[in-house]
């Protein structure tokens, strides 16, 4: 698997990969309107990245992005999430206060009671938290798969079990 699979699998996975990523980003961005959210969309995008990793091999993938960059991305998502919660403490009253709801310029409109119109400009701080958690989940889950695949890419069969290392 370290050298990758056949040319057919590589081509088909390269064609399918943008559709999976667009679908996952749609789930993340519309988390406050349709079912799904940051974790679900991040899991979908990480599944697409894992498909690309399996098709092309871990050596090719580690040349594209390294696990240190993924770790930095995941920490960025975590810091953004906690910073949004702390901004609720600054501008509002308590931790995790939804301080953006009801304002005039960003995600501030309020749908009426029992409204069925999907207005994207609603939700207060929820879309920003969805983006932060989505970035965190994409980077975290793909970092786990990438590190495990790259670390075991040169093993012979049963080498780890026999205690030769």
């Amino acid at each position, binding site marked *: 698997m370290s050298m990758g699979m056949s040319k057919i699998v590589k081509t088909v996975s390269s064609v399918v990969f943008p559709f999976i990523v667009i679908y996952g980003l749609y789930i993340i961005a519309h*988390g*406050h*309107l*349709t*079912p799904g*959210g940051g*974790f679900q969309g991040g899991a979908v995008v990480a599944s697409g990245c894992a498909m690309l990793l399996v098709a092309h091999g871990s050596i090719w993938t580690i040349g594209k992005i390294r*696990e240190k960059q993924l*770790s930095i991305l*995941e*920490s960025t998502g*975590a810091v953004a*999430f*906690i910073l949004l*919660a702390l901004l609720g403490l600054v501008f509002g009253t308590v*931790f*995790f206060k*939804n301080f953006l*709801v*009801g304002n005039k310029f960003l995600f*501030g*409109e*309020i*749908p*009426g*009671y*029992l*409204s*069925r119109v*999907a*207005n994207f400009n*609603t*939700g*207060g*701080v*929820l879309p920003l*938290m*969805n983006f932060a*958690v989505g970035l*965190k*989940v994409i980077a*975290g889950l793909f*970092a*786990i798969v990438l*590190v*495990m695949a*790259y*670390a*075991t*890419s*040169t093993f012979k069969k049963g080498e780890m079990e026999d205690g030769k290392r």
Partner: protein
Amino acid sequence: MLKRDFAAVIFFTVVAVFFVFAALLTHPFGSPDNPVMDDYIIHNTQTEVGANNGVTSVVFDYRGFDTLGEATVLFTAVAGVILVFRRLKK
């Protein structure tokens, strides 16, 4: 050996009876026992939080600390896996 089999049969029978009684005592499907908090969230999430999706408003607004704990668990898992597997490749 026969005594151990007998004890295992008695143990699993008791556990199965408890499970059957617990399944008989649950509330019917789709009607929770205490719906006060559910009704509050369903009726107020569009005017308080401003989001049409009630589940996301519960996850990120009403129960934000739960999501913070989940993010901490994911961060710890990723840190542990990278710590174990980073130096394995020469």
